[in-house]
């Protein structure tokens, strides 16, 4: 780690196929994003037209946790019609390419009565893809 006043060392730049990798994101708690942005987003570098996403721990039946394509960290960028409501532990395919650079997981709506229905704990999000670089950018829910 660089000390104060020293420039941070440059990150290695890796190009070319690096093989399939899996990003595991654990212990997330989502809050209903109908009134504020509480989504998880990840942007990755990959040549393939879709990424494989598996979310473990969503409610059954799942009506509120959406998996969507996304092209920036700061805000939602896909229409609702591009999103899916995944079943727990079942892999879904998310479009990737020039239009979409990554994955968004977001809660939209409430899953039950009372304050508890406004949030959902997710055990794990797994994103698998063939990587062309090992740089990943995340936006985490508060």
């Amino acid at each position: 780690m660089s000390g104060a006043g020293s420039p941070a060392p440059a990150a290695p730049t890796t190009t070319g196929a690096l093989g399939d990798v899996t990003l595991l994101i654990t212990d997330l708690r989502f809050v209903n994003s109908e009134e504020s942005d509480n989504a998880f987003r990840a942007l990755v570098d990959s040549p393939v037209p879709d990424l494989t996403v598996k979310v473990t721990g969503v409610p059954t039946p799942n009506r509120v946790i959406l998996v969507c394509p996304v092209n920036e960290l700061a805000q939602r960028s896909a229409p609702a019609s591009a999103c899916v409501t995944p079943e727990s532990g079942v892999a879904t395919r998310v479009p990737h390419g020039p239009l979409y650079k990554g994955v968004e997981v977001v809660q939209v709506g409430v899953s039950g009565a009372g304050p508890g229905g406004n949030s959902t704990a997710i055990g794990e999000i797994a994103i698998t893809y063939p990587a062309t670089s090992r740089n990943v950018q995340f936006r985490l829910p508060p």
Partner: protein
Amino acid sequence: MTPVGNGMYQATASFRSATGAPGEAELTLVSTTSSQNVARGPGPALSGNLSRPAEGGFRLRNSGSTTLTAVNLDVQFP
């Protein structure tokens, strides 16, 4: 990320405080073969080297007293 290779990693976290008071977070590298590397502060950043563990990851924890918003994490895995 799994698998990770040999080489250098970098991670930087950024965020805003929901209250305007300074926020603070703890960013930790966790791997199966390297000792932990931890940074704390209003914009924690880590770098170092990993030697081919089976799995490597970063943990981000709000270590301050205010709610953090717009939490971004930029990671370069080896």
